[in-house]
C-alpha cells in the first residue's frame, strides 16, 4: 500500500524518459501504481507526484477525472457491465439486475469477501457482441444470465487466471526499446535495436 516498489520505480522512470515533458508520463505512471496496489493509494499518488516534481493535489486532481482510476479499494475483479444503447436494446438492464442479484451488491459496491466490484459503465466498444461486459478490462460478449453465472464461477475457481489478471494490471507487454531510465530530459534512444529484417521474429 504504498510507494512504488523498486521495480515499479524503475518502470516509472523509464516512462518519464519516453516523453519530451515529464508530466506526460503521469497517467501511465498511475496505471503502474494501480497495478501494484489494485487502487491508487495516497502514498502511491504522493510518490508519483515526487517523481514528477508536481503537487500531490495535481496528481489527485488528474486521477479523479478518469473513470478507470480508483482512489478507494476495489475488488480483485472489477466487473464493468455496459448499459449504453446497443447493449441496452439487447438486454443490458436485465443483465445488470441479474449481476446485482448474483453478486449481492449494487453498482459501485464490492462483495464482502473483496473479490468483486460491480460497476455500470458507458459503451466499451464491444457492441458487436451486446450485451457485453469487461472484467478487469478483458472483454466478454453476448452475455446472458447463465453466461454471467458461469463467468463468476470460473473467476472464483481461478480458471481464467491467465486471461484476467488482477485489477489494475492493464498492459502486460512491456516496451522494450528507447528506455533511458532516469534521463527525463534526453530523447529516447533506440540503441541496440538496429536489427536487420532477417532478424525480425513475430512475438
Amino acid at each position, binding site marked *: 500500500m504504498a510507494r512504488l516498489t523498486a521495480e515499479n520505480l524503475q518502470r516509472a522512470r523509464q516512462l518519464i524518459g*519516453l516523453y*519530451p*515533458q515529464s*508530466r*506526460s*508520463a*503521469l*497517467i*501511465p505512471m*498511475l*496505471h503502474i501504481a494501480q497495478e501494484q496496489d489494485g487502487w491508487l493509494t495516497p502514498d502511491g499518488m504522493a510518490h508519483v507526484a515526487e517523481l514528477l516534481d508536481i503537487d500531490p493535489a495535481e496528481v489527485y*486532481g*488528474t486521477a479523479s*477525472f*478518469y*473513470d*478507470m*482510476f480508483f482512489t478507494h479499494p476495489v475488488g480483485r475483479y472489477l466487473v464493468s457491465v455496459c*448499459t*449504453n*444503447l*446497443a447493449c*441496452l*436494446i*439487447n438486454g443490458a*438492464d436485465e443483465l445488470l439486475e441479474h449481476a446485482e442479484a448474483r453478486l449481492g451488491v449494487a453498482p459501485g459496491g464490492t462483495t464482502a469477501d473483496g473479490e468483486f466490484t460491480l460497476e455500470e459503465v*458507458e*459503451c*466499451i*466498444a*464491444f*457492441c*458487436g*457482441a*451486446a450485451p457485453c461486459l*469487461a472484467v*478487469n*478490462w*478483458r472483454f466478454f460478449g453476448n452475455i446472458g444470465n447463465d453466461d454471467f453465472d458461469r463467468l463468476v464461477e470460473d473467476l472464483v475457481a481461478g480458471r481464467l487466471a491467465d486471461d484476467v489478471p488482477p485489477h489494475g494490471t*492493464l*498492459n502486460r*507487454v*512491456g*516496451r*522494450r*526499446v*528507447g528506455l533511458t531510465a532516469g534521463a527525463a530530459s534526453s*530523447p*529516447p534512444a*533506440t540503441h541496440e*535495436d*538496429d*536489427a*536487420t*529484417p532477417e*532478424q*525480425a*521474429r*513475430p*512475438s
Partner: protein
Amino acid sequence: MITDAAPIVTARIGSPQSWTLRSYLDQGGYDGLRKALTMDPGEVSEEVLTANLLGRGGAGFEAGKKWGMLRKADPVYLVINGDESEPCTFKDHMLMEEDPHQIIEGTLICAYAVGASQAFIYVRGEFALGLERMTAALNEAYAFGAVGRNILGSGFSIDVVVHPGAGAYICGEETALIESLEGKRGYPRDKPPWFPAAMGLYKAPTIVNNVETVSNLPWIVTNGGAAFAGLGVGRSAGTRLFSVSGHVKRPANYEVEMAKVTFRDLMYDPKLGGGIREDRELKAFVPGGVSAPWFGPDQLDMGLDQDAVGKAGSMLGSGSVVAMDDQTCMVRAAWRITRFFHRESCGQCTPCREGGGWLDKVMRRIELGQGRESDLDLLLDVCDNIAPGLGWPPQKTTICVLGPSIPSSIVSGIKMFRDEFLVHIKEGACPFGR
C-alpha cells in the same frame, strides 16, 4: 448492394495471428512505408490530398488538408487518436487488436509526410488487449528497423510511444486528448487559438489523426491517391469501416465502399447486417454515433455519403449504425444517450454541465412514468439553450461539440415519436413494460 471494392483497412483481418509482424510482412506489410520513404514528403501529402481521404474519427475533415494547415515550426508532433469512445463504435478497437502494424505503418507515413519529430498513439485505456497488441507490435517494428533511427535505411528517424488513456469519453476530442497526453484532466481547449495544427501538444504544431484514417495510408501510398479517390463518390472517397449493431442479425464491423453502399445494404444485405432480428420492422436507426440525430426507415436508401447525410440533417460521424426495431422504447433509448452525455460532460461549460443534468432528469422521469405534460416543451427549451435553433449542424454555446450533441436524440425522439413520449406521460408508465 455491396460493390466489389476490395477491403483496404480490413484486408488482413481474420488471417492467422494477423497482429504479428510475420503475418504483416507476409501480406505486404511495410511496403507502403518503404515506397513513401523513396518519395519527397510533399509528394506523399499530395497523394493523400488526391485520395480525398476524409478523417474517420467523427468530424470527417480532409486528412490531406489538415496536414497542409500545419504551422511551420520545430518540433512538430503527430498524435494518433485511438480513444474510440463514441457509443456503438467499435471499429478502431478491432483495428488496434487485429492489425496494429497497419496503424504503426500509417503513423510513420504520416510522420514522414508532415515532418514530425515524435509520434504518440493514444489508445483508449479500457482496451487492454489493444494496448498489449499495439505495444508488442511497436517492439517488433523497432526490432525490424521500421521505427527508430534511420528507418529502413532511409535516413528518416522517429520515435513512437503507445500511450494509454484512463477512461473519459471527452478525450476523443482532439484538444482534450492533447491535454490528457500532457498528463492533465481531459478539458477541451478553445479554438481559436488552440487549433492543434497551430498550437497543440506542448504548444507545438500537432497533427491529430484517427486510427482508421492512418490505417488507409499504406494502401494509398502503394496504390496511389487516384485509385482511392476512384472508389466511392466525390468527396466520400474510398471504403469505410462501419460498426453495425443493435437489432440486426449480424452485428459486426463491415468495410464497404462509401456513398455507393446504402444504409439499407448495411443493415439488410445478407453479407452485412443480414436484416432485423425475428424479421421485425425497423423503427429508427442511428446513422453515425449517438451524437447524430436519428433517421427513420424512409432514409434507408441513402448512400453512405458524408455530405448527403449531412444535408439530410445528421452525420456519418464515427461510422456507427444502430438499428432499433419496432419493440424499442424510444424514450428509454433517448434517455440512455442523454444520461451518457451528462455523465461524460467534462464540466467546463455551463450549458453542457447543467443542461445535460436537467435533460437527464426530465428524460428519466418521463421514462419512469412521472413525466408532466409540460415536459416536452421543457426538454426542447433546455436543448435550445445548449444548441440555439436546434438546427443541423448545431450552433455552439460551449468549447467543444459534446454539449451541442446532447439534444440530438431528444429532438429526434420528440420529432419522430412524439406520441410515444405522450403515452409515457399520460399513462404514467412505459408502454414497453419497463
